[in-house]
């Protein structure tokens, strides 16, 4: 019984550590490191974009993060807190940066954004990411970039 418990807690240790590594790679603008933490079949969902925001972690996810890094070259993050339950780790993260290029139809006004995000990572038994869903207040994000 205790052996199982110990194993479970070690698994969680690795999973939270993987999340930290994901955000560290994000800070370093290193999309390869980010996607290498996931299985080849892993999925991602940028929730405010609806069904259009769903895709493969290593393709769609990489494309979105690459675009973000291109349009917001100083993009950065702060991990506020992490919480694990079952096979998921939920991270509250502040994402911030300055827009330098048009992003998804939003022309650049050179404005900064700072937006609280919720990342929910799911893992397989080898502690690889199998799914990630990301949520944020998109209206507020757009308002910050348009100065509305």
């Amino acid at each position: 019984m205790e052996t199982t418990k110990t194993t479970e807690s070690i698994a969680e240790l690795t999973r939270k550590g993987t999340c930290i590594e994901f955000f560290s790679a994000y800070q370093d603008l290193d999309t390869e490191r980010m996607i290498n933490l996931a299985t080849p079949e892993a999925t991602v969902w940028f929730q405010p974009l609806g069904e259009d925001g769903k895709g493969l972690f290593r393709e769609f996810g990489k494309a979105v993060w690459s675009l973000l890094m291109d349009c917001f070259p100083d993009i950065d993050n702060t991990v506020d807190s992490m919480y694990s339950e079952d096979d998921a780790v939920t991270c509250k993260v502040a994402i911030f940066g300055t827009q330098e290029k048009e992003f998804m139809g939003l022309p650049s006004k050179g404005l900064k954004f700072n937006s609280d995000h919720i990342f929910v990572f799911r893992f397989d038994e080898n502690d690889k990411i199998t799914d990630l869903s990301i949520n944020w207040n998109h209206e507020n994000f757009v308002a910050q970039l348009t100065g509305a």
Partner: protein
Amino acid sequence: MFYRKFPPPAHLQSFVECFYIWEYSKTLSKAIAIESPPTGFASIVFNYGTPYRVTSQKLNGGLVPKNFLTGQATKSYQLQLSGQIGMVGIVFRPAGLHTLFGMPMYEFSDERTNLRDVLGKCVDEYSDKIEDAASHSERLALLEQFVNVQFLRKNPVADRTDFAANLIVDKRGLININDVISELYVCRRQFERKFLQKVGVSPKYYTRIRRVGHLCNELAQKRWKIDDWQDLIYHYGYYDQSHFIKDFTEFIGKAPSLYVKNNTELANYLKN
């Protein structure tokens, strides 16, 4: 009911907030529920009373390990005690547990992890001795010895993160993190990474936890009778009422009015 906090000796004051003993010599005729806001402190607890349950965002009334380590709470939680109460604890300064024991504290936020799983078999010896101790002073001495052994092994030195985290506690969370970063001449990213490692949450998030925790403490001291809410909100540095309600509800899990009502009812019930 006996509940008392004890200050640590001088050489541990940068790492340990206090020791405590909580006992009840009789057997509780029915279970009692005690709600606690997030306090901003991590702790190690040795329980020699009846095993108890915790309801939190993670534990749905589950039994907690006999001896456990808990990191930062990011939400209110409720202890459900029954039978006999007997426990002692070490409450650490926000970065103290990491500085003394070296584990990444983000792993323990909102968790109650079996102490044996973290520190190994050495825990059993202390657990047995604490259980068998004949007096409060003996138990207190064992707690001090437990920390002292680690202190001698590790020879810890409080660093800038300890300083910043302790400053946030001392200022009740009413502090601008950018000012702290400038004052300490540290790189923001490095500071935030280290803080997450040593405290378990980000510096800004920690100021919010600390502020709400301290405010709840003041509400309790005033027996939940607040004459001027606006003054209180202003005193705790909230921008306006809606900002206060949003922050309070996020950490406590209920609106301030409901929190005060519930606690007033509980206080009246206990008084009667």
